[in-house]
């Protein structure tokens, strides 16, 4: 089996690569509307990876894993897909009343193995299905942990529904205590986050209002999920908000041995908060 594996020195590679999800640019999807009325309803979504929110100025989001689900749970078509230099865009025809979900979800395996006395890192793109074929013959001490990412948005035609919030039991998922398409400035909203189907305490929740380019301060709201996996946010002003939830990142000391791989998961959503 001839494979080009990234032959980084073990410690440096683990630190450098595993730091990527936490410090990377921000990935987001921006729907043309989150609350809609009418009989023939469409939503257009921009999807990008950028520094400032919500400006497409760095990389388009890949659309390979994008899917949409109608309120009744049926998968719906992603139409008019295009990927440009800085952003991707697509449409969804919202043919049912209720709350729709549009998501990009992926699972991968991170970890390492020993070969010929050296510790090597699993290549990017490894997942549970292809692990066996990616491991070179003779690999020993294989250590893996699963990393799940979910980037999803919700849009509602007519009355909000919650039929699409049945947990799948994998990665970080949002359970609406407050419906994500019923948010108003000055009001408090509560969301519950699950990790692998169970309410997860201690998740890191980052909330950042859009429009960063035209202000000096980030106005980031830092929260941690409570024992029941819940967080409460009081929206300071109307607008679009980026919400990022991650499993906590262990502190690392320079030069110390890397910690054993831990379950990692990240979650992103974009929420619209209306003026009262």
């Amino acid at each position, binding site marked *: 089996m001839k494979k080009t594996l990234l032959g980084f020195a073990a410690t440096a590679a683990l630190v450098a690569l595993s730091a990527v999800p936490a410090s990377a640019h921000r990935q987001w999807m921006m729907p043309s509307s989150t609350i809609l*009325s009418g009989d023939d309803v469409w939503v257009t979504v921009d999807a990008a990876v950028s520094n400032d929110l919500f400006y497409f100025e760095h990389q388009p989001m890949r659309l390979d894993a994008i899917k949409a689900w109608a309120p009744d749970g049926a998968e719906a078509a992603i139409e008019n897909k295009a990927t440009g230099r800085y952003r991707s865009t697509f449409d969804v025809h919202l043919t049912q009343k209720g709350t729709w979900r549009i998501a990009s979800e992926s699972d991968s395996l991170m970890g390492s193995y020993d070969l010929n006395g050296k510790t090597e890192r699993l290549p990017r793109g490894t997942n549970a299905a292809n692990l066996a074929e990616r491991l070179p013959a003779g690999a020993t001490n294989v250590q893996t942990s699963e990393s799940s990412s979910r980037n999803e948005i919700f849009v509602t035609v007519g009355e909000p529904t919650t039929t699409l919030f049945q947990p799948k039991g994998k990665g970080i998922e949002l359970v609406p205590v407050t419906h994500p398409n019923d948010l108003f400035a000055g009001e408090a909203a509560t969301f519950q986050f699950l990790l692998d189907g169970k309410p997860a305490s201690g998740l890191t929740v980052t909330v950042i209002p859009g429009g960063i380019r035209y202000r000096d301060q980030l106005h980031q709201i830092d929260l941690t999920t409570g024992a029941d996996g819940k967080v409460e946010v009081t929206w300071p002003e109307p607008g679009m908000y980026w919400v990022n939830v991650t499993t906590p990142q262990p502190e690392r000391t320079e030069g110390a041995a890397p910690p054993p791989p831990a379950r990692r998961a990240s979650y992103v959503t974009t929420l619209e908060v209306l003026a009262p």
Partner: protein
Amino acid sequence: MQFSTKAIVIGGTAGLSAALSAPAMAAPGTMDVTVNIPRLKVAEYHRPYVAIWVEKPGAAAKTVAVWYDYDMKANEGTKWLRDVRQWWRVSGRTLTFPADGITGATRAPGTHKVSFTRAQLGATAPGQYTLVIEAAREVGGRELLRIPFTWPAKAGPGGRAEGTSELGTVSVSFR
């Protein structure tokens, strides 16, 4: 009375309820709402979408009128109903359009009188209510006014609110 699927009852029609109003001295059974839609000097003017509803603490909001482009082909005028955003949240999003009895055409700048019976207002139980009127104009702004009222009401003027942008004076009286 049978309606075809496309037929709708236009709500809040002035005149009809006046003809049927109770004899003088009886407790008022009707609210007259006078709505001024201001004439605006703007390059692109569209008549506002207007929703009128009644709120009572602990009860669902009751829409009594929504003026929008209800007669466009393929019901296209409903696309912008959500821009009347407070109304959309408390009531509009639960309705099916065109909604019988409450749907009406958009109104031109000027003063309009519409009348609602106590039953239409959902104010059959005695108590405190608020009449809310919200206007949202295409390529324009939005404004919301509230007029509290009590039922049973006294005959005569029953409250007013002054708009500053998308609405002029709105007043209610009882008869």
